[in-house]
């Protein structure tokens, strides 16, 4: 659904078709925010980035990989055709007291902070690429013809969020509660349709 269509439907539902109380810019911002909240709850937006393996580097900052990265869910060493296993600092400490000094082809990755992660071991020389599949924040819609990044059947969720925002601007307690509840219900549906329900039913049958 295009932004202009979604905006018109939100204005209709708020009984503010002229967009006097809930301006066009404010509705546009609420659509962008709705997509953020949906992405945060469902992890529905997935993208891929490449990052050069740097000499001596154990730690990689997310903002040096991609501007829209929320968190990686798969890291692949292109050079070795190998998925990096997840580990943790405490596990590495029990593996080797000198793990930070160990060099070699990276085969594990571990969390440190929300904005950077580590790999083990660190490469002694630069070269090779990490393929990083990640859950992304959505991009802001650029213009009225821009489409939201969701299946067409799920456009009700940002619609509900937009109306919820309109109710919040009016300090309408009951309206806020009602539309927020509706949005949460649609969020569950969105999570299912962009996740497990994307897989064909036949693949999930009980094995005899």
């Amino acid at each position, binding site marked *: 659904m295009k932004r202009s269509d979604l905006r018109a439907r939100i204005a209709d539902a708020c009984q503010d078709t002229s967009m006097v109380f809930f301006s066009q810019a404010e509705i546009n911002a609420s659509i962008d*925010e709705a997509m*953020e909240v949906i992405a*945060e709850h469902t*992890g529905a937006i997935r993208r891929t980035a490449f990052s050069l393996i*740097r*000499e*001596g*580097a*154990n*730690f990689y900052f*997310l*903002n040096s990989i991609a501007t829209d990265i*929320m*968190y*990686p*869910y*798969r*890291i692949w060493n292109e050079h070795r055709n190998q998925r990096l296993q*997840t*580990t*943790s*600092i*405490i*596990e590495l*400490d*029990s593996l080797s*007291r*000198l793990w*930070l*000094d160990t060099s070699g082809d990276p085969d594990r*990755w*571990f*969390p*440190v*902070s*929300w*904005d950077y*992660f580590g790999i083990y071991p*660190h490469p*002694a*020389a*630069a070269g090779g690429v990490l393929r990083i599949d990640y*859950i992304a*924040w959505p*991009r*802001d819609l650029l213009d009225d013809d821009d489409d939201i990044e969701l299946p067409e059947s799920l456009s009700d969720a940002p619609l509900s969020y937009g109306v919820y925002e309109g109710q*919040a*601007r009016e*300090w309408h*307690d009951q309206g*806020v*509660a009602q539309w*927020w509840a509706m949005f949460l219900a649609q969020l569950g549906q969105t999570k299912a349709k962009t996740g497990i329900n994307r897989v064909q039913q036949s693949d999930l049958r009980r094995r005899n």
Partner: protein
Amino acid sequence: MSQTTVKDELDEIQNRLHDQGAIWTRAELLRWYNDGYGALVADSGAVRRFYTFSVPPRFAAAGSFIWEERHGGGTFRKFMKSALGGNIECSYEWEVEFLEGATPTNSDPFVTQLWELEYAGGAIDDHYRFYLPKSHERILRVAWDDKRMFGSSDKEIDWTGSKWWQREGEPAFWLRGLDRDKTFEVYDIQTAYGQNYFLDGDGFGLARRLSGTRSYSASSSYRSNDYAYWTPADIGTFLQGVGWRFTKHDSVTDFDCMYQWEVDMLAGNTLTDSPTVFMYYWEAEILGSEIPTFPVGAPRAISSPDRQYLPMAYDTGELAQLGAARDFGSTKDAISLLETIISTRDLEEDDSPALIPVRMYKYLRFYVWALAFGRTGEGQRPALAKHYRERFNQGVALLKLLGDLTHRDRDYQRSDLPIEGIAPMRRPRLPATYPRIEY
């Protein structure tokens, strides 16, 4: 999404409140915004940074009485010990014995600053205590020379029956400490003075050059200066862009010299051979020799095949992530800490809450709206306050989740704890009748 400032966020908050400061003042909203920022960062524990300490521990000021801290500024160590019900402050044990009428005995050395251990000629009767930075929230890992140290407690170690805080050796244990908050202790202790990086002339802005036992070289993609100049007086309104000063100032004679031999001559010394002086990078084509790079500006990145130089942003000011390196640390022969942090100071309107993802700024708005709608008086909306509080809490939960970046990729399974190798080392406990052992 571009980075917005607190000002933009407060405008949006006021817009929702339909108030331009009559009911909720701008200053009040800013305070709540800062409260929300602190709560989000602290409660999630998702902002983690490395921090290094050279040994022995350093602190900004030391005093005899605790009230002196008010005037010390920065980290403060009370180096004397109270006696006679707090009426007297003593340096040595024998002072107490003397004051109480007992026969004085020899006492351990005493120091004001712990780096004096280098010169104390032996262990002192005080704890080896490190002072945590202002941004510190929680310790996650302590290491010596990159090797993890084991967490312990004074009660556990006291069973060894010795003055463990005096034992010299490789630091292996850390403990919360017996003294003031925001400190921790380590043992065994290192008494030799260590300093990995020293900021020479730190009153003169940013670091321009690195030197030491390691080899450093600079490279710059910007290799061409716009003009060359002799003295600062040459820089006028007609000269624009990047300038390169090709002279050296001799402070004794107040002359500006091109060559080293000129400086030598002015000082009456033997003339030394001086390298060719260049004004522009393109002169290399004429001279047929390579001209050293003209590094322009401050260092933006440091790399090495042997180790990683990791930028760590602790502050949260305007475009904090784009700044320059203000301090340097190393884990080599030093104590390093992985810690959760909070912002070191309150945000101003021109700042950005740079310690959290840009997309999560909205949760700070929710926090402010929760407090605004919850405040007694005009504009109170308890239901909205409760709703926004719940939404803020969702933000805390989300940021906590993001703190574990591998959560989606990790397959959890039950494991036996404690993990082998990280538990405190067991020590033998001898019967009370056993002769005392001094290390």
